[in-house]
């Protein structure tokens, strides 16, 4: 192992590769900040430029873009309530609230540190556990996916602070929005109302930017959003970084986020996205103060930010060890491998160890670069908040317009985003929160496909979900997650009852 690491570092620390890693991470951060353009579009654009590079340098640069995006996406989520990336949507919930309270610095700081720790844990996991975990991911069939999505959806209630029924209604609406367009299996039109505009479905970017960015702009316009004392103050680095209490609050979420992100990142589909939502739900569920979530809890930033970065690192496991790309970005990276005549897979460790270890070790270096780059930038980015809302609002609007347009070069996406902005604004006014809707929209297509395939395999019998141990375990987690609030209440009631009967110490007003 040590020999391999030394070999890897000897490659990744060469001047050329350091430069490509630096370019990749810088580009990734910029792309992450810009809403609309994701890592897949950027890598696709830059892929032809890598033809002249050697494979290791090409993949080092492209991988730098991939994990750099997760760092950059946080900045707009925290400062403007516009998620730069889908995986940073959940950061808006508490990150933006922290910014409104004058704590944008600690939010961005903990996100940068969490991202670094998550990314590093992901790379260490990639190094140590790649082959066995890849085979576990391969054992996931449609029923296992459906069960995983069900387990993920049980966290819906923890994404919002309001009514449980309203949260579930929003999740259902998210699933319905995901159904718009062509059916993924048969190609039948659904909920298109006969218009061509909706035949491709609703894009995640117009939806998310509308629900978060435009809705917030409308709140600012009507005068209901106020900033609390963070324009007049001069910023000092010490005030920008998380304090001891922040670290104490964030240590657990960062640790758990690393594990959640790593595990879910290996799975096909939106691992990093799902992991950030699950991490948020998990933190809220186990927190002693769940009421703090949604109004600026640092745990709500630390956990998801760590999880999405850990997930980007572990997404390399199936690519490098099995040659299977489980998301669009890793598919493009596979294309880079194929263009250079190398097929990643189980033999890459034996045949081309220099490539494997060069890429893996470059990810350590990339994460260090991103941390060093991001920390000093926090002070610069925070200065955005010194600009009054009256000037900042139209600029944010322009960022949203261009972000929505740049996805498909379609003006209808801009109009759809505005419509969702108005809907998002009205939802807030009527006590509905967008979190469950976004989560359901993201996992909706994967869930529907997995559910339909599973039921087709079993001729419509639900017994297929109880045939594999993975399914049973995931459904048990989902079941426990649903009943845990009642279990907790029951446990407290029984404990109090036993105390009253046993020792005679009766609780009066909370005191014995």
């Amino acid at each position: 192992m040590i020999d391999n690491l030394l070999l890897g570092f000897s490659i990744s620390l060469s001047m050329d590769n350091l430069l490509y890693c630096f370019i990749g991470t810088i580009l990734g951060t910029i792309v992450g900040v810009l809403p609309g353009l994701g890592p897949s579009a950027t890598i696709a654009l830059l892929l032809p430029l890598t033809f002249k590079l050697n494979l290791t340098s090409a993949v080092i640069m492209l991988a730098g873009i991939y994990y750099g995006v997760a760092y950059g996406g946080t900045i707009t989520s925290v400062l403007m309530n516009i998620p730069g990336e889908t995986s940073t949507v959940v950061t808006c919930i508490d990150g933006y609230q922290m910014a409104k309270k004058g704590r944008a610095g600690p939010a961005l700081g903990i996100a940068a540190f969490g991202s670094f720790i998550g990314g590093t844990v992901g790379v260490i996991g990639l190094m140590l556990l790649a082959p066995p975990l890849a085979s576990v991911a391969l054992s996931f069939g449609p029923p296992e996916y459906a069960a995983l999505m069900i387990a993920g959806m049980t966290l819906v209630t923890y994404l919002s602070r309001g009514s449980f029924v309203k949260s579930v209604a929003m999740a259902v609406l998210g699933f319905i929005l995901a159904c718009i367009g062509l059916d993924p299996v048969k190609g039948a039109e659904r909920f298109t109302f006969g218009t061509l505009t909706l035949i491709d479905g609703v894009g995640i970017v117009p939806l998310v930017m509308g629900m978060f960015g435009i809705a917030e702009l409308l709140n600012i316009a009507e005068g209901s959003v106020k900033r609390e004392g963070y324009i007049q103050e001069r910023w000092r680095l010490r005030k920008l970084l998380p304090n001891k209490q922040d670290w104490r609050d964030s240590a657990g979420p960062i640790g758990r986020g690393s594990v959640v992100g790593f595990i879910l990142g290996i799975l096909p589909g939106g691992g990093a996205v799902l992991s950030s939502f699950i991490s948020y739900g998990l933190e809220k569920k186990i927190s002693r103060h769940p009421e703090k979530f949604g109004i600026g809890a640092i745990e709500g930033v630390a956990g998801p930010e760590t999880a999405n970065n850990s997930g980007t690192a572990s997404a390399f496991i199936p690519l490098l060890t099995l040659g299977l790309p489980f998301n669009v970005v890793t598919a493009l990276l596979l294309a880079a491998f194929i263009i250079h005549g190398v097929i990643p897979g189980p033999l890459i460790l034996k045949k081309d160890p220099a490539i494997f270890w060069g890429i893996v070790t470059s990810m350590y270096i990339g994460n260090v670069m991103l941390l060093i780059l991001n920390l000093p930038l926090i002070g610069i980015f925070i200065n955005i908040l010194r600009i009054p809302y009256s000037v900042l609002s139209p600029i944010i609007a322009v960022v949203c317009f261009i972000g929505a347009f740049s996805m498909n070069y379609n003006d209808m996406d801009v109009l759809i985003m505005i419509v969702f902005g108005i809907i998002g604004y009205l939802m807030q006014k009527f006590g509905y929160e967008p979190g469950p809707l976004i989560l359901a929209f993201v996992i909706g297509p994967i869930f529907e496909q997995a559910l339909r395939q599973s039921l087709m395999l079993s001729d419509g019998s639900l017994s297929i979900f109880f045939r594999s141990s993975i399914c049973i375990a995931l459904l048990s987690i989902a079941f426990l997650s649903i009943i845990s609030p009642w279990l907790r209440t029951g446990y407290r009631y029984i404990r109090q009852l036993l105390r009253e009967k046993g020792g005679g110490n009766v609780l009066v007003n909370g005191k014995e």
Partner: protein
Amino acid sequence: MRKKDYISGGFLFIVSIVLFIQTRDLTAWESVGPSEGFFPLALSIFLGVLSLIIIMQAWMQKRKPLGTLKILGPQEGKFILYIVSFIGFGLLFMKVGYSITLAAFILFVLRIVEKQSWKLTIIAAVISIVVSHVLFSTFLSVPLPEGILSIIIDKIRAI
């Protein structure tokens, strides 16, 4: 809040009915299992049930005050102007061109809605146009619509 719950619950119920009607043309179940209409049908029914629960919950909290229906904050006029400017941008930028529409949008919002100085308005418009062109058009190859600007440039070139 109860009044708002009645209205939002009622609205979601209407949405669920419309969606339910839309699923009539889709096949929900085939011999091999669920088909394209299965998920939309189940979801529309589920949404209908949830909307009725929201209405029922509001009805059951009779003791609580009905609440107000007021939605807009203190700056209603500004809110409407913002929505008009957003929709205007969305409708015009493809036909008129990105740069001209962006300049008009910034001018409208900063100068007329937010009552900022001419100097700041012009600086913001120029910076927005230049930065978005450099970042998106040049650097990331996003084809920003030129609209009538391209016709004018073509005519000047022809002359």
